[in-house]
């Protein structure tokens, strides 16, 4: 056992949260600086893990295992593979940019950052967990801070409703999966929650077929799968900016990832059996999400529904059960995470200054906020899968996966590309170009330096991957190989 990188990454935010809670409420500057330092530290660690990851070796790396309750086979077991390493990095990036964007929160920043960091710890924990109990433990830790963050610091009009809806939906999803996981635990007869061991459990095909659906769908609810996606747009809109960034950028990936880890990897035959249904639901996500997004008048709702559509692509990639589809899904989780973090950051900046998110009431924002405009343009290009950006690198293999399984699905899903392009370009044009409404003239202050750093960081990642897919694809591929081995042996 070597240096416990993953434990440090997982627990740094929690420790930071406790430290922050010890500050007096008036020490706002100290709170913010502590938060940023912890976030940067976590990011640095995750970068290290990412770039020292051995892309040739098979299996999980940076493994740490501490016995927690041997009687029931529970252990604090961390490890990353090619699929989770980019996601750990993604969380680090979103954490740092989220803290930067939240610099201006003035109402009880102590509690805000404390809850945000508890959320972050939960997220890191799920991505790094190789123990099924601990996966649920960290998963739930990531759910309840959302309620507090949205209901206290969110948009006054809908925050109570959205926060409660979101929390209940996610809780329902997680307990449904938990029941499935417990059934799996007892049926396996192996008396361990260690997922590496459970991967070798020989569940009967019937068992897998029955239990795959509740386990997968329970997690996929957090991934925004139709028809359980309803919580997501309202949750996005009501949440304060950094929370939206976390929510769409990382939390939804949590759901998809857990669905992959627990659903597909532990119940492969069930996955193969139910794949057509999942493909169908994901297809509805992709196309329906795009159409609904195109009729929204609130800028944030547009992005919220577009997230539903893009997460549909992730789940579609999973459901194809092909190397290309899975690779694309892995890249899409990262790419969409960065893109949506940028979008929400930008929306937040516009809203803080214009105090409206209604598209007809906005306009001409590119003059006072040029970097925000460029960021949104780049984000839009990623969103419509424009080559040269990370979105294309992600979407293209997913479509190839669709071709391999069901050509018609690919053709229908392609509609969403055009729909996305049209609404995204229109929104960008209406909000950032054209004439600024008189009510807003002179009220649009420029953005902070920290905001600029955050935007540039996010844009660089999207363009970098778009031009050099080798920055992420080899990692994802190692993870995909493992998944295919599990599916093949099913």
């Amino acid at each position: 056992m070597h240096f416990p990188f993953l434990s440090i990454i997982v627990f740094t935010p929690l420790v930071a949260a406790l430290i922050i809670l010890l500050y007096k409420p008036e020490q706002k500057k100290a709170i913010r600086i502590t938060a940023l330092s912890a976030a940067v530290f976590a990011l640095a660690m995750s970068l290290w893990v990412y770039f020292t990851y051995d892309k040739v070796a098979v299996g999980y790396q940076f493994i740490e295992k501490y016995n927690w309750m041997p009687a029931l086979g529970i252990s604090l077991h961390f490890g990353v593979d090619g699929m989770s390493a980019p996601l750990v990095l993604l969380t680090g990036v979103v954490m740092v940019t989220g803290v930067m964007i939240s610099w201006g929160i003035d109402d009880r920043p102590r509690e805000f950052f404390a809850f945000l960091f508890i959320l972050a710890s939960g997220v890191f924990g799920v991505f790094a967990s190789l123990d099924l109990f601990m996966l649920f433990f960290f998963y739930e830790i990531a759910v309840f801070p959302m309620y507090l963050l949205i209901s206290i610091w969110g948009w006054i009009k809908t925050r109570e409703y959205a926060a409660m809806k979101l929390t209940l939906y996610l809780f329902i999803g997680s307990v449904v999966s938990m029941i499935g996981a417990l059934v799996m635990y007892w049926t396996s007869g192996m008396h361990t929650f260690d997922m590496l061991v459970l991967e070798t459990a020989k569940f009967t095909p019937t068992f897998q077929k029955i239990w795959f659906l509740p386990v997968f769908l329970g997690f996929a609810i957090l991934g925004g799968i139709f028809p359980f996606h309803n919580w997501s747009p309202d949750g996005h809109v009501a949440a304060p900016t950094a929370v939206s960034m976390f929510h769409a950028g990382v939390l939804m990936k949590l759901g998809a990832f857990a669905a992959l880890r627990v659903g597909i990897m532990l119940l492969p035959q069930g996955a193969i059996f139910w794949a057509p249904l999942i493909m169908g639901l994901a297809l509805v996500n992709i196309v329906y999400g795009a159409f609904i997004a195109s009729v929204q008048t609130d800028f944030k709702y547009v992005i919220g529904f577009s997230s539903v559509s893009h997460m549909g692509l992730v789940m579609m990639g999973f459901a194809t059960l092909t190397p290309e589809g899975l690779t694309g899904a892995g890249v899409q989780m990262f790419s969409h995470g960065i893109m949506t973090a940028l979008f929400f950051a930008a929306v937040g900046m516009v809203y803080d200054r214009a105090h409206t998110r209604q598209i007809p009431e906005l306009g001409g924002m590119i003059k006072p906020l040029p970097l925000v405009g460029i960021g949104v343009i780049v984000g839009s290009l990623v969103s419509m899968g424009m080559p040269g950006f990370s979105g294309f690198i992600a979407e293209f293999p997913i479509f190839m996966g669709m071709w391999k399984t069901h050509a018609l699905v690919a053709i229908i899903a392609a509609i969403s590309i055009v729909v996305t392009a049209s609404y995204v370009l229109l929104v960008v044009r209406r909000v950032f170009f054209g004439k600024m409404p008189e009510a807003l003239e002179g009220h649009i202050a420029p953005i902070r330096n920290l905001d600029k750093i955050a935007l540039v960081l996010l844009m660089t990642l999207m363009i970098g991957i778009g031009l050099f897919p080798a920055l992420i694809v080899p990692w994802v591929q190692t993870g995909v190989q493992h998944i295919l081995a599990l599916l093949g042996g099913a």
Partner: protein
Amino acid sequence: MAAILPILPEILLLVLGILILIIDPFLKRDTSRRPFLGWFSAGGLLFILAVSLLLARPTAPVLVFGGMLRFDWLGFGFKMFFVFAAGVTTLFFMDTDHLNRRAEAYLLLIAATLGMCLMASSADLVMLYLAIETTSIPLYLLAGFLKEDDKSTEAGFKYMLFGALTSAVLLYGFSLIYGFTGKTGLYDLSTNFSTFNVVAVGIIFLVLAGLAFKVSLFPFHFWAPDVYEGAPTPVAGFLSTASKAAGFAVLIRLFTAVFPAISSDWSLILAVLATLTMTVGNLIALAQKSIKRMLAYSSIAHAGYAMIGVVAFSKLGIASVVFYLIGYVLTNLLAFGIVGIVGRLTGSDDFQAYSGLSRRNPTLGLAALVAFLSLAGMPPFVGFVAKFFVFSAAIEAGWVWLAIVGVLNSIVGLYYYLNVLKYVYLYRMEDQDEEHHPLKVSGTVVIALVILVIGILLLGSLFGPWFGFATKAAMSMF
């Protein structure tokens, strides 16, 4: 010397009670608070806890005192928790008007604790009944302690009436057992109940009625909301935790000792009861406007969750019940403690009183967060682990539908617990002037809160050794 080790806690409790009685007349009566009594009681209870843990740990289960008591880990474990709960409650007593001045209050608390300790280790029907009454009567008095408060008097009276009624039913059940078997020792009776016949059914119903009252299981739960609402809040806290846990201890012992052979039959009965309890408790809690009543119904629901573990009736099942109760004691004490503080400082138990609590006293707000999220079953608090293991045991034993019911109920629970947090964190006072209306909390209460919060976090994260202990307790039953 070794002979009294099994009842060392009880003896020390008796001594403590007598000491309090003796000291009381020597303390001045005209001071508005008499902290010495409180500290003495709390200190005494802590001393009892420490000494018992050091000296009086059981080894292999053995019947002592002519078969009256069984010295095993289950009994011992519960005793320690009763003493702990009493100690914490004493700290809360010190903060409550009318209770803190009266030595009788502390004495009654200690007496009830003594009774509970006996309940937990009783191995004979007569001893059991004696212990139950020893517990109940002081609690009736404590519930009605606030003479000037009509609600409290009503609560005490109601409690006494229903308690007496169900005690009678229980006694009738016990007498039937004696009548049919000629024995009163619990551990001799298992052979007599190897088949599920009419007699067994009748006895089970009667006994269950009595115990269900103690544990506030449906349909014997209806006393709880009124009594909890009327009684002084720390008393309600103690009632809802220690008293309930004692009832469960008896249930566990009875069912594992007397009725193991027909477990598959009574398990179903209990499962149905558990379902109804959880559902009724949770659904009615949704509609409450007083936080004390809401907590009352929530406590009812939690009894249902714990019952799931009993239904599972395996080593894991009993262990999970024990662990659940430990966690539940910590959590509910914290919840009622906070309610008590806020009730005293704002004069109201309605939800409105909690608006802006997190701004008036951020630490209290965080304590409320811990309490209610643990009740909801969220990590890293003990509530999550407790529920996880209870559901786990149910699934292991094949009761998947029951686990699903439990899970669905948890969702309902989450809703109304989050509602409380909404008031604490989101809503504001009418004038939004929380800075000028801070809530100052006394030192004793802070100590209690800190102990409970640490306990909840500790058992929620490093639960290994604690669950190991619960397993030991369970093993001693089989």
